[in-house]
């Protein structure tokens, strides 16, 4: 009996103890400030009656379906630097692009600050411009250490935005680039750069008013 206790029960209890300690010390602590239940999914007033329940379910399905765009839309994936012209299930154009670097610039004189991010969210194509000119903002001169010009024409550059630019709001554009070798890398000041061929295809496919989803 003693032998069974020492050679069977004690090792089993010991192993269980080791297992419990291991599982406890390797348990990660959840980060603070994260809500565990974002949506209250417990309390719903779903009808018990089948007919009413079917109707309620149908209404919810319809409400969700209404959110989906009826026409193809542009998606800009800032994580992988890719741009898509797509519907829910089909992709018509998949191209490499360049999006915002996320870097910061602070003007040492005026203390103005810029963060070069491509904005995230849902936008619409507002215009299409052929042979666009770039009006250089102040940060371009601060970044390159040049004085900010007093004459407006000194800000204008007609050689950097490629053949087309499509504005999607707040001064952000999808446009071409002379730095095609940098496509696929987050190097821009917020605009979305595309290679010449892909830009031509996208401009041709995209009507004004097309939704642009950036994530």
């Amino acid at each position, binding site marked *: 009996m003693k032998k069974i206790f020492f050679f069977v029960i004690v090792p089993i209890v010991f192993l269980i103890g080791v*297992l419990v300690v*291991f*599982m406890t010390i*390797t348990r*990660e602590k*959840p*980060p603070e400030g*994260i*809500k*565990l*239940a*974002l*949506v209250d*999914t*417990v309390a*719903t007033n*779903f009808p*018990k009656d*089948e007919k009413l*329940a*079917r*109707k*309620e*379910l*149908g209404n*919810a*399905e319809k*409400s*969700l379906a209404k*959110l*989906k*765009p009826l026409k193809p*839309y542009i*998606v800009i*994936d800032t*994580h*992988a630097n*890719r741009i898509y012209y797509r519907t*829910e299930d089909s992709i018509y154009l998949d191209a490499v692009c360049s999006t915002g*670097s*996320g*870097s910061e610039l602070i003007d040492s004189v005026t203390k103005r600050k810029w963060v070069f991010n491509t904005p*995230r*969210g*849902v936008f619409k194509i507002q215009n299409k411009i052929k042979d666009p000119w770039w009006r250089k903002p102040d940060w371009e001169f601060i*970044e390159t250490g040049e004085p900010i010009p007093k004459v407006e024409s000194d800000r204008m550059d007609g050689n950097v935005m490629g053949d087309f630019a499509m504005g999607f709001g707040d001064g952000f554009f999808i446009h071409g680039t002379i730095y095609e070798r*940098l496509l696929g*890398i*987050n*190097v821009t000041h917020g605009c979305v750069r595309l290679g010449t061929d892909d830009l031509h295809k996208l401009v041709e496919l995209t009507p004004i008013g097309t*939704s642009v*989803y950036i*994530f």
Partner: protein
Amino acid sequence: MMTSARRLSGSIVGVLAISLLVSCAEKRQPGTTATSTDKQWDQQQAEIQYRVLQAELKLAQANKPYLVLDLRRNRLEIKLQGTTVWNYAMTLENTGESELKKFGERFVGSDTKVVRPILFKYLFAATGKTADSILAIVSDATTFPQELLQRTIPERFQLKWSDDVVLDIRTDVVGKPESKWKNTMVDIRQAIGGHLGDALVSVKMPKDNAITLYRAAVIGLPTLIYPAY
């Protein structure tokens, strides 16, 4: 003689018809039993389905992305305002239907939580997307620091929700382990946890998809599940 042969063939046809009906019923696509147009009705599943739809409607109101684990269609999606912006048809790795079912049940739990935030993201091994030499040239030309320009290509990473629900993502990339010791500990813990009720589903993914998911899946990202029933 003829009558018995007719009876026999009649019985065979009958048995075949019944088996066909049974197999059709078994092969029903999961998730279809609770739609508003379906003939068969399961109140409990319909209620869960309704909760999922309500939850997605709430998530879609925000101008922020959310992750969708659609186990009915074996699909991972990132959505923004209810619209798919990224999707991937899951190729399961060493994961059977039972593990997938367990994953869904564990995620939803007894209190029907259809939305959970990502609590942990663990990178096992990774490699740099861009060569150091190219980064140096770009960095000099653009004045952006190299660290900002470099992007990770994960070889393997995991997303984890509360109650030990884990999605394990593997790619063909051969990367450098972040910490061999910690990786081993995580694997051992999950191997033991698997026997204690933890749910882990392993998915194989091309590197481009993995880059997007790895970077988009930030801690706290709301995740919605469409269970596989």
